[in-house]
């Protein structure tokens, strides 16, 4: 016969077990060495000249801030490749990965990049040469296909664009399949609605405001080849 005492002991046991499972799940997710799909996170740590948590300072450092939709993640390239030998003699090629993305600019918050046309931007980070690690700056993340972001990017001397930071706003509903089913007028309305939804997100508002009050940073600057030439000459 079940007594009141045995019933509450059972409840306690279930609660403790649930807490243990939760702790295990949390504990396994917060450590370098976290492996997902066979790829281990390898977070790089950096020393910055600006406070990267201050949107005004980020906006002042970069050349362009815009809302963009990531259409495609392309190839990665590797800088400063060298051969690293582990203690057990295993040799691996190591280099800093840079991943290329095709992004459609939806709205400029700073600068004048071509809108509604795909441009290419590069971000430091990506899969390691041996395919085993995901290299990304600590606290940072890589752009994702099919999502909208606020991008803070800088132009290189060759006109290319490097993404310093990206802040995820939302996933796009305008997939290739969805677009394929729309009439042009429908698509226009859907694009407008999506942009309005993006503009309601906290990071959008934060950077829209930050770009008006940016903290200037004096450095050599270049123009992106993706800049909207007509606007640039006005």
């Amino acid at each position, binding site marked *: 016969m079940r007594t009141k005492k045995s019933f509450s002991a059972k409840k306690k046991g279930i609660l403790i077990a649930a807490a243990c499972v939760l702790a295990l799940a949390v504990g396994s997710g917060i450590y370098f060495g976290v492996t997902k799909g066979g790829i281990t996170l390898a977070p790089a740590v950096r020393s910055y*000249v600006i406070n990267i948590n201050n949107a005004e300072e980020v906006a002042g450092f970069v050349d362009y801030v815009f809302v963009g939709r990531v259409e495609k993640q392309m190839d990665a390239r590797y800088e400063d490749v060298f051969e690293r*030998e582990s203690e057990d003699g295993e040799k691996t090629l190591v280099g800093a990965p840079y991943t290329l993305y095709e992004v459609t600019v939806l709205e400029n918050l700073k600068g004048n990049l071509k809108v509604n046309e795909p441009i290419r931007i590069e971000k430091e980070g990506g899969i390691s040469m041996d395919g085993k690690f995901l290299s990304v700056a600590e606290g940072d993340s890589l752009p994702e296909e099919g999502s909208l972001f606020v991008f803070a990017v*800088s132009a290189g001397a060759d006109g290319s664009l490097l993404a310093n930071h990206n802040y995820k706003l939302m996933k796009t509903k305008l997939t290739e399949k969805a677009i394929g089913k729309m009439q042009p007028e429908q698509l226009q309305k859907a694009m407008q609605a999506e942009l309005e939804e993006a503009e309601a997100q906290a990071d959008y508002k934060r950077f829209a405001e930050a770009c008006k009050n940016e903290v200037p940073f004096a450095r050599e600057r270049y123009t992106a080849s993706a800049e909207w030439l007509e606007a640039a000459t006005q």
Partner: protein
Amino acid sequence: MRSRRKLQRIAIILLSALTLVVVGFVGAGCTTSNDYLLSWHLVDSGKHCDWDANQSKYESYVVSGAKTWNAYKAGVFRPDSISVVQDVRISDVSELGESWLGETSPLGYINLNKALLDEVSSNCKQNTVLHELGHALGLDHNDNASTNIMYSYNTAVTALSSSDKSSYDASYARY
């Protein structure tokens, strides 16, 4: 009924033990109130961090930085050689559009950003190199005071603070 209760007790004990192991494992990489540690480091099992900075124009700063850290714990940093395989490779990049002066990766490299480093003072350069070498030792950022080498942002500080040393003590204990 008895065996069911027994099984429940065993399950609870096993899960509790597993949790303690995980928490302890995570705790080894976590910070105490005084120690700021990364969950990784680039020190080998012989307690050495052997560096190669032949390709870097800041090699003299690396030599000096290694000397500063070694003054606290002798012999950890060593230049690599034919007989000493590198644990960390230090090289220069020129990323004008990036806002970082230096970065250290658990994959075994330190990159120094010439585009920004060339614009700062000698002490600020030294601070950057000391800071990145600290990461190679397994030290995380410590923003409690700007006098820490491991402060997140660049300064002209070139001496280890007591917090830097405390964190180094904790990191050294795990090599």
